[in-house]
């Protein structure tokens, strides 16, 4: 993404959403590192990392703190949705199934089929809207993850409390669910999400829209043609155009992005190494 620095840009994400995404990156990377230490404790890397985190106890504390952060992001987001509902005078139905809702709808299915046809050279590129189906998938993966990993995580955090209601062996089951679901989340985010969003050749090496919230109008037009056309038709595009950030901010954002990408890939490499060479 290149921009000449003076042209106005399209504002895709609110300030709160951007902040939440940054916190989520920090929380998610912390959770994955401290969690993988335990999952792959039999590798030398795990031992080294556990020492870097100041021991397994402090690693455990970081893990739990990051988990609380993640809950916090989740709750804040839900509150923000209801705030938006009130602000824009939306009914619950409009909130859930409206034009810009994250809920899957018929268009997503059409886009998915259209996309497959396009991949295979049997049709044009679909006319993507504000949220594509893969973005929605990533979004709901977080819901699913928070529910599955979060609930089992709480059981492992407070086993003495939970075993008042559930049998002791369920803690073993919870361990497997927690750890494998986490592996799925980490693996998915650091490969599929990374590719879909950042490493796709036209976005390579990364798309910083989620940090700045801004994208060039030209790029917006190309990426989300349906939304663009709608805004132009309604004559509302101007409402969403803002001044771009200073180059220093962009630079800082890139450093942060690079760091997150590097850690994410390292974790993937470590997981693959652990699974292939030292699995037990």
């Amino acid at each position, binding site marked *: 993404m290149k921009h000449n620095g003076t042209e106005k840009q399209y504002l895709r994400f609110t300030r709160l959403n951007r902040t939440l995404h940054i916190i989520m990156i920090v929380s998610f990377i912390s959770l994955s590192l401290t969690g993988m230490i335990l999952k792959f404790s039999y590798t030398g890397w795990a031992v080294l990392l556990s020492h870097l985190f100041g021991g397994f106890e402090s690693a455990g504390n970081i893990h739990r703190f990051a988990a609380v952060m993640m809950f916090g992001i989740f709750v804040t987001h839900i509150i923000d949705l209801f705030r938006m509902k009130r602000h824009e005078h939306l009914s619950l139905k409009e909130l859930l199934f409206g034009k810009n809702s994250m809920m899957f709808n018929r268009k997503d299915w059409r886009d998915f089929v259209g996309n497959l046809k396009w991949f295979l050279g049997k049709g044009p590129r679909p006319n993507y809207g504000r949220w594509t189906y893969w973005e929605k998938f990533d979004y709901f993966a977080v819901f699913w993850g928070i529910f599955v990993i979060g609930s089992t995580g709480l059981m492992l955090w407070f*086993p003495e409390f939970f075993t008042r209601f559930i049998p002791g062996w369920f803690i*073993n089951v919870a361990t497997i669910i927690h750890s494998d679901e986490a592996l799925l989340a980490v693996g998915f985010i650091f490969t599929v999400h990374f590719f*879909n969003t950042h490493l796709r050749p036209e976005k390579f090496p990364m798309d910083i829209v989620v940090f700045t919230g801004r994208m060039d109008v030209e790029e917006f037009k190309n990426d989300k043609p349906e939304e663009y056309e709608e805004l132009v038709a309604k004559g509302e595009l101007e409402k969403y155009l803002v001044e771009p950030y200073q180059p220093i901010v962009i630079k800082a954002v890139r450093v942060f992005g690079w760091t997150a990408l590097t850690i994410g890939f390292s974790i993937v490499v470590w997981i693959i190494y652990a699974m292939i060479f030292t699995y037990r």
Partner: protein
Amino acid sequence: MFKRLNRKIFSHFSRAVPLFVCIVIFFGKTFSQENGDCFSCHNDNSLTGTKKGKTISVFISEKKFSFSVHSSLQCINCHSDLEGKEFPHDEELQKVNCGNCHSDEQEKHAKSLHGKAIARGDKLAPQCFDCHGKHDILSAKDRTSPISPLKIPFTCGKCHQEGTKVTEQRTIHQDHIIENFSESIHGEGLLHKGLIVAPNCASCHTAHSILPHTDANSSIARKNIATTCTKCHAEIEVVHRKIIKGELWEKQEHVLPACIDCHQPHKVRKIFYDQGMSESDCMRCHDNPNLTSSKDGRTLFVNFEEKQHSKHAKISCSQCHSEVNASHLRPCETITKKVECSSCHEEVGQQYQKSTHGELFAKNDANGPTCKECHGTHNVLGKTDAKSKTFPTNIPKLCATCHREGQKAAVRYTGEQHQIIEHYRESIHGKGLLKSGLTVTATCTNCHTAHSVLPKTDSNSSVNESNVPKTCGKCHHGIEDEFAKSVHSSLITKTDKPLPVCNDCHSAHTIRRADEQGFKLDIMTKCGKCHEDIAETYFDTYHGKVSQLGYTKTAKCYDCHGSHDILRITNPKSHLSHDNVLKTCQKCHEGATRKFAGYLSHATHHDPKKYPWLFWTFWGMTSLLLGTFVIGGIHTLLWLPRALQMQRELRKKKNET
């Protein structure tokens, strides 16, 4: 059966016939046998019988018997097993028990050196008849009796003189006993002058209660020797106090020399002092620092001062260098052998002989250490003396002279223990002894013993696995008790598989404090050596994973199972028994409930039969994972070519603008 029974008469009969005749003659008759009945057969000097497969003469001279002290007795009084038996009787007779009549003597004999040797099954040990004879036993008053005063030296000499099996195969600390005795004032009186009141062997050693001088009950024990000598030399002690005035009495209060300190056993001469055998006589030459051996040039200087401060301050030169002969101008020229410490330190000497050190020495191996290598010679100090080489804190250094890496003992050693000394110094025992200066801490000799040092493969070794618990238990007694009741004790578990002993978990020379991190982390691999599956599944659970990261603040094997007191979980006393398991969990998990204890601390998701829930959960999750990645992966891969195409178009567009 008698092979020959009046063969002259029955010679024309076949072998079986005389037997048959005998049976016919005496068949059915029961009577009390007269001696004449016995001698009717046994007075025949060609009569033979078999004993343990060997043909022996069973001739008994009726004449000799009639002169013996037992002539008034009936044969069956001694051969009581023959009473009422038919003739001819069974060949294998029971041994005659002299103690039936002579119970006192027999009791003394049984407690004596000789009696104990018989009890051990020593074939060379003398029985009653070896000294007294059998059917021809004569009174000690009879000059021809082997136990008459004049004959006793010869009777004893049958075994105790140079060249006999006893002197060659058994350890007798005195040499040339009979020779020396015959030259001594006692022997001269007895053998040359025929004074039957002169002491013979039994006068000093007693007849039946012969004991080594190291035995406190012995007539020749140091504290008893005066009593023994004063049996004849009644006033000698008084005489000595008068005559040898001044010497030890005045120098060292309350110290009385024993007779033998001056008058050596078997060599007693009245002119002893005239010929010079006192310490000062030895020191006349050996005080010279330049005195050397004419044979090998080694120094023969003796630091008398050092000797007087040694453990042997009260022992005179000639007591150790016992081969000296006072009748020679240079009494020491008769010395042929090295000093034999075991003549006093008998028990220790026997232990040493059986040890690896002693065996090497016996094989003339130059590497085999003798007493002096560890204890020194004239400067020998007790192990309680801090300056002694055998004082606890000095022992590691002493053993290290040979057992340090590269030294002579370490070089020939083929086992697994290396850097023994270095490891010991860093061990809990080494630190206790050498850094904290605790002399009660285990040093080399506490585990390996001082004199019975044997390799651990020897079942008699103190460090053999069967003896290790006992050896460690000498100090760690409470733990030995606990361990003996645990599943790991061979007393409880009967199995062909090797059971662990102390050193399998604690190691030998590298032994660490059990509350140190290193030990705590190591214990899992130690237990895992035998409990492979259990250890592996442990590492699949939270506790195991945390330990694997190198942290100890989590449950390790012994936190749940106990350490020395590991019991089967079916045992109500086990830490993991139904009644105790919750308490065990609560040690760390304070609020744990009964359900909490249902946690599977050795769970694996690889066993569908034992843990179906875990197995199916794992595979359910794995399928979800694989499914998601496959769909996501294909989607991404299909996208790639289009994305590249788009990138090219975008660039083109950009270049155009």
